[in-house]
C-alpha cells in the first residue's frame, strides 16, 4: 500500500501547491478553518490535521461566503453585464473529515441537480480534488454515523488514514485521485501499515424514522418549546458545512457595480420578508422549525438523505445550548396524535 510518511507531509503539500491552491485545516487567531497552505503564517498558524473538526467547515471553498458573480454598468437608459466571474482554478482540500465530505455531496446535489446547474458552483467544483482524513476516534459532539456517514470511508478522491507515528495510508478512490497521486508518487513510500481500530461514539442518537415522523409534526407544540432559547443569531447556519442558503445583492458606485451572492440564514427575519409586508415565517418558532425540518425532513424527502452530517459544529457554537442531537431525541420521544 502507499504510505505518506509524516516527515514528508510538508513536502507533499508544497508539491501540490505548485499546481493548485491547497486548503488545509489551520489554526488562525482564536479560530480555525480551511485556509491556503502556501499563504499561511508558519509562525502563528498550525496545521490541525489531528483535530477532528476545525471551527469553520470547508464549505467556503466551493461556495464562498461572498462571491462576486458579474459586473454591471448602467449609465442612464443603457445597461450591460460587463464580465462574469466563474472561477475554475484548481483547488485541493486536504484533511477534510467524512462529515464535511458528505456536506460537499449535499452542496453538489443542491447546486448541480434538479433541473438547473449553478454555473458558479460548478466552475469551482469541477477542478476540485478532495483528500479526506478518515476518523477513528469520534469527538464528544460527533454523530456522523447516525446520519448515515461512514467516518472511516469518507466520500473523497483520496482517503488518508493516520496510523500513528509513522504515517498515513494513502488510498486513491477516483480517477482524479489517481491522477493527483501519480504527480506525487516519488514522495510516497510502498509498505504495509495497519489502520487503527474504530472507537465508539460518545454521543449516541437514532435518526431512523425521524424524517417520516416529522411529516406529521409541523403543528406540534414541541417547536414552540424547543425554539424558546433561540436568539436567531444564525451561527448554526454559518458554521454548518451543508447550510447552502444564499442571498444575491448588488454593490454599485457611479455607473458601475457588481452583483454578488453571499451566505444567508433562515434564522433571519429578512430571509423571507416580502416587499409587500408579508412574512410567512414571522417569528423564531417558524424559522427554527423550518431550519430543523429542512435538515431532518425536507432535504431527506427531496434528496434521499438528511442535510445534517453529524459534524457537531452547531452544538459547539450555539450560545444558548441548542443541540440538534437532543432535538432528534425529543422528536423520537414526542407523542403524536394520529
Amino acid at each position: 500500500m502507499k504510505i505518506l510518511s509524516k516527515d514528508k507531509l510538508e513536502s507533499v503539500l508544497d508539491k501540490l501547491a505548485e499546481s493548485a491552491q491547497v486548503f488545509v485545516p489551520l489554526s488562525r487567531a482564536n479560530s480555525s478553518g480551511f485556509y491556503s497552505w502556501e499563504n499561511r503564517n508558519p509562525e502563528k498558524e498550525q496545521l490541525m490535521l489531528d483535530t477532528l473538526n476545525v471551527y469553520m467547515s470547508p464549505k467556503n471553498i466551493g461556495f464562498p461566503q461572498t462571491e462576486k458573480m458579474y459586473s454591471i454598468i448602467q449609465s442612464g437608459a443603457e445597461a450591460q453585464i460587463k464580465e462574469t466571474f466563474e472561477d475554475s482554478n484548481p483547488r485541493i482540500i486536504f484533511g477534510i473529515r467524512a462529515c464535511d465530505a458528505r456536506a460537499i455531496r449535499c452542496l453538489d446535489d443542491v447546486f448541480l441537480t434538479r433541473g438547473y446547474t449553478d454555473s458558479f458552483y460548478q466552475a469551482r467544483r469541477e477542478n476540485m480534488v478532495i483528500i479526506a482524513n478518515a476518523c477513528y476516534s469520534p469527538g464528544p459532539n460527533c454523530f456522523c454515523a447516525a446520519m448515515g456517514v461512514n467516518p472511516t470511508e469518507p466520500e473523497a478522491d483520496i482517503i488518508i488514514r493516520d496510523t500513528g507515528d509513522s504515517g498515513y495510508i494513502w488510498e486513491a478512490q477516483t480517477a482524479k485521485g489517481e491522477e493527483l497521486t501519480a504527480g506525487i508518487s516519488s514522495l510516497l513510500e510502498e509498505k504495509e501499515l495497519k489502520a487503527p481500530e474504530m472507537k465508539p461514539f460518545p454521543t449516541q442518537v437514532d435518526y431512523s424514522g425521524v424524517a417520516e415522523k416529522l411529516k406529521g409534526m409541523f403543528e406540534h407544540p414541541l417547536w414552540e418549546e424547543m425554539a424558546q432559547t433561540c436568539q436567531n443569531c444564525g451561527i448554526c447556519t454559518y458554521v454548518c458545512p451543508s447550510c447552502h442558503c444564499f442571498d444575491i445583492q448588488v454593490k454599485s458606485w457611479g455607473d458601475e457595480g457588481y452583483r454578488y451572492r453571499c451566505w444567508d440564514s433562515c434564522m433571519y427575519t429578512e430571509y423571507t420578508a416580502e416587499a409587500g409586508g408579508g412574512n410567512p415565517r414571522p417569528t423564531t418558532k417558524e424559522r427554527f422549525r423550518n431550519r430543523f425540518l429542512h435538515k431532518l425532513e425536507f432535504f431527506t424527502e427531496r434528496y434521499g438523505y438528511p442535510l445534517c452530517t453529524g459534524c457537531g459544529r452547531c452544538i459547539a457554537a450555539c450560545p444558548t445550548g441548542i443541540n440538534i442531537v437532543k432535538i432528534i431525541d425529543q422528536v423520537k420521544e414526542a407523542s403524536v396524535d394520529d
Partner: protein
Amino acid sequence: MTDKCSCEQPLVPTIVEVVDIKDETPDVKSFYCRLSEGGVPFNVAPGQCAMVSCLPVGEGMFSCTWQEEQEYLQFAIKKVGLLTDELHAIEVGQKLGVRGPYGNGFPVEECQGKDMLFIAGGIGLAPLRSFIKYCFKHREDYGKITIVYGSRSYADLCFKEELFDEWPAIKDTQVYVTIDNPEEGWAGHVGFVPAYVEEINPNPQGLMAVTCGPPIMIKFVLQSLEKMGYTDQQVITTLEMRMKCGIGKCGRCNIGSEYICLDGPVFNLAQLRQLPQEW
C-alpha cells in the same frame, strides 16, 4: 410544453429594452420588453415567471403575461418596495435585466374541455390573465369561462379595457367585477370576492377553478369553493414568496420540501394539502 430556462448561466440576466410602459392603476404599470435587436430572450408559458432586474438596484420575480406571438416579455408590476419603486420611475428605452422562464406554469392542457372559473383579487389578476388570454386564443378547447375579479376600488381594478370591453364580448364568457366599498359613479357589485363567488355559485360539475390574490383572499376563496362542493383536484392556485435565485437553490421559497420557484408556483389544492400549512 413549458420551457425551462436552459441557459448555461441561469443566474446571469440578459439585457432587454423597455419599449412600452402602460399605467394600469395608480400603483400598477405594465412593462413591455424585448431584445434591442428584436425578439425575446425566451418564450414563456401561461403562469411562468421571470426575474426582472434593474441592474444597480436588485432583482425580483414577476409573473410574465403570456402572449401567443411571444413578441414581448410583458410584466404587470405593482409598486410595493425598493425595486418596484425604481421600475415605476423608469421610462421607455431603459435597459433592464431578465432571466427565466421559471416555474411550472398553469396546466393548460389538463384543463382542456372544461368550463373555467377564474377568481382574482387586486394584482392577483396578472398571473391569471395569462391563462385567461390563453383560453381565449384557444377558445374552442375550453367550455364556458367565468371570471370573478375584485379590487379595493374602481381605480385599483387592473386591465379595465379587457375586463369591461374585450372579455365580456367573447362567446360564452361572463365577467363579474366587484369593489370592496361603495363609491360614487360605481353601479356594479360591491363586496369581497369570496362572498361574490358564493353568490354567483358556478356549478362545480366539469369545471376547473383557478385563483390568485392576496393570501387572505385565497384563504377565504378556498373555503368558499369547498363549501360549494369543489374537490381539491378542481382548485388551482399560484403562490408567491420571496425569491432570490429562481432555480431551487437559495433556499427561501420552500413550503415543506417543495420550492415555489421550481416546483410551483402553480399547485392544485390536493398538492397543497400534502404540504405544511405555511402558504
